[in-house]
């Protein structure tokens, strides 16, 4: 479909439109010298930059030099060709959503969540699930029409799944904050695996969240959706509601709404809704 769209070419902008200015900084494992400076310039040139200016060369340890470099790239991007899986639903307010759940589902939604693996960063999952919520936006516990079970941190993937099964959860909320050498992906995969083993994969909604999580990655890992920094509990509540409707074959057509407004983006649910775009 992007074929139809006419092109919208963009370039980085520094001083004048389309000048392509980019700032770089990096360390090279050599001491400061004219040669080191030339090496830094070479790095920038090899990245395809012209007008390369090594604005700083600093001795960052006996055998290390820190560089700040400016240069210009000649690349052009067709902005219209860039696609991100993103679907916009009109977002319900707190009361409105509870009312909608009561009306459309006629029962409380059950969600079980945790920060899994050896990760003990609870603030993220707490922000979504606990009463208090995040940035003045109430947490799921506060929603009359949600039953939210937060298992806290350092929970084994399998035990999270087991508990969700026991609670008959509609959705499993997984948080990962530590990402060193992709440990968050490992743990996420492990969770999906054991959900399959324990036979609740099909009937459960899987949400993945964390500062380094985005919707795309979450989809790749087999989740229904991913939520990154700044997510509000109401985004999550709305998402789960719509997702459940959808599973009941009653998803409303998503409506475009401005990004970042109170009618905030609710991440896409991959393929199915993708088509309704």
């Amino acid at each position, binding site marked *: 479909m992007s074929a139809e769209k006419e092109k919208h070419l963009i370039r980085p*902008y*520094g*001083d*004048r*439109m389309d000048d392509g*200015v980019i*700032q770089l*900084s990096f360390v090279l494992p050599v001491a400061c010298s004219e040669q080191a400076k030339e090496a830094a310039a070479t790095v920038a040139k090899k990245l395809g930059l012209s007008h390369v*200016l*090594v*604005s*700083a060369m*600093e001795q960052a340890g006996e055998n290390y030099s*820190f560089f*700040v470099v*400016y240069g210009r790239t000649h690349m052009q991007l067709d902005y219209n060709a860039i696609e991100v899986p993103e679907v916009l639903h009109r977002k319900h307010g707190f009361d409105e959503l509870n009312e909608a759940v009561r009306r459309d589902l006629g029962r409380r939604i059950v969600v079980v969540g945790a920060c899994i693996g050896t990760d003990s960063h609870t603030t993220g999952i707490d922000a979504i699930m606990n009463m208090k919520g995040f940035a003045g936006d109430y947490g799921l516990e506060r929603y009359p029409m949600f039953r939210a079970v937060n298992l806290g941190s350092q929970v084994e993937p399998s035990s999270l799944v087991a508990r969700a099964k026991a609670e008959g959860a509609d959705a499993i909320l997984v948080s990962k904050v530590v990402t060193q050498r992709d440990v968050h992906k490992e743990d996420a995969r492990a969770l999906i695996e054991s959900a399959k083993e324990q036979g609740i994969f099909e009937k459960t909604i899987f949400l993945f969240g964390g500062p380094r999580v985005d919707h795309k990655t979450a989809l790749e890992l087999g989740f229904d959706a991913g939520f990154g920094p700044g997510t509000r509990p109401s985004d999550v509540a709305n998402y789960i509601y719509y997702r459940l409707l959808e599973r009941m074959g009653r998803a409303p057509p998503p409506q475009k709404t401005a990004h970042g407004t109170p009618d905030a983006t609710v991440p896409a649910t991959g393929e199915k809704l993708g088509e309704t775009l």
Partner: protein
Amino acid sequence: MAQLFVEPDRIVRARELARAAAMGVQAFIDRHTTVSIERTVLRLLGIAGAGSRGAPLANLMVDRLRDAGVLKDGAAYWLGRALRAAPGKDPLQAIERISAHPAKLPALGAAEEEQLREEMRAEARAAVRELRARIDQRKQLKASLRVGSFEGAPWKYVIVATGNIYDDVEQARAAAQQGADVIAVIRSTAQSLLDYVPHGATTEGFGGTYATQENFRIMREALDEESRKLGRYLHLTNYSSGLCMPEIAFMAAHERLDMLLNDAMYGILFRDINMQRTFCDQYFSRRICAFAEIIINTGEDNYITTADADEAAHTVIASQLINQTFAQNAGMGDELIGFGHSFEIDPAREDTLLREFAMAMMVRELFPKSPIKYMPPTKHKEGDIFFSHAYDVMADLVAITTGQGIQLLGMMTEAMHNPFLMDRYVALKSAAYVYRAARHLGGEIRFAPDGIVARRQREIFDQALALLEEVAKDGMMKAIGKARFGDTARMAEGGKGLEGVVEKAPGYFNPFLEILEEGR
């Protein structure tokens, strides 16, 4: 709040000396006019536009009159004569005609003389009324909007300088949306040395964009729009400096600019412009600023980007007191004088934050009614943008804590290039944070009465006083000749533009000045 540790009687003494020094020059100023002043009068009287080869009409006319040796009577007078001699004719041709051989021109009778002057006065008054109307527009818009980020926060002043007025507009809008309160369009390098004001919109400048009336108009229009959109008033500033101080002041007033960089000595010291010329021009330009309620920014910051900021601190104070007298002589109220200084001490030294506090508080308190213009670190900026940013943050802290009025925000790329869009973004975001974080810090802390800061203030002021004693004794011109300011020596007869200074004839006629000096 800022604290002053200098004994009041020394301050009184310093002011007397500054006044004495400036007064010596004022007599000279009153006896002379300049090509730029006369061009300004013609512009007021409607002589806009440029000739075939781009030379402004005002320049073409004034040059003729000067070459004919009659400029001493005032350009307005000769414009009147010319139009009489050749009614309905094109003014330039008319002027050319008479200045070809003015001697041949039959003298007018006293009555006619008087009538001619009255007609020109009437025209001038009409033009001034229109000017006043435009200025009131500006004031009304400002009065109807928020000004600054919050009560007591310095106005965030940023520079645009792409060399292309249309890119400047893009960058100015973005800056405004990020929280800037003042937009300065930096001039093209050395426009200050042009003895005319270029005409029309600029798309190619070096290190800046030409100051032209059209550029002023384009930018002000964009800022009016943004101001309304953001509900916050955006100030526009430029440079009434160099060889065309009066003309640019007039254009700025007409195009509703809010501020102008305008210094009594900058052109002399940093652009090697003749001092007689600059002294005359600064007076007329400031008369216009006083009338138009344009805030001027003096240029003392430049002293300490040239000389060592620690060693030359006292020259800043001395010069500010002198600038103040010159401004007051031109009818400016303190509330219109934005005294310039800056956070420039070499960061390699110790206790620089204390020393900057000392200076910033002293300047703040010496001129309690004035909007102090605080400049960021520049001279010791190097290419490490992260360090550069940390360094700027310290200046933000001093600015909010000592209640500076207008803060030019430091740019992390100061050592490399004119600010990029992202450089301004970074500066504006951090300044907003520091202002917020330290909002009431100034009201909380007191510096020890005999501490490093207090002692440093007294030390600087003592040196300033000594300098002023000398200047008052030698007189301004001699003192400048001795390189007392900005480490640069300039001679009374040296520098650019002296040929543009003319002694007034007894009957010198300047209807614009008459209005500006009403109630002097």
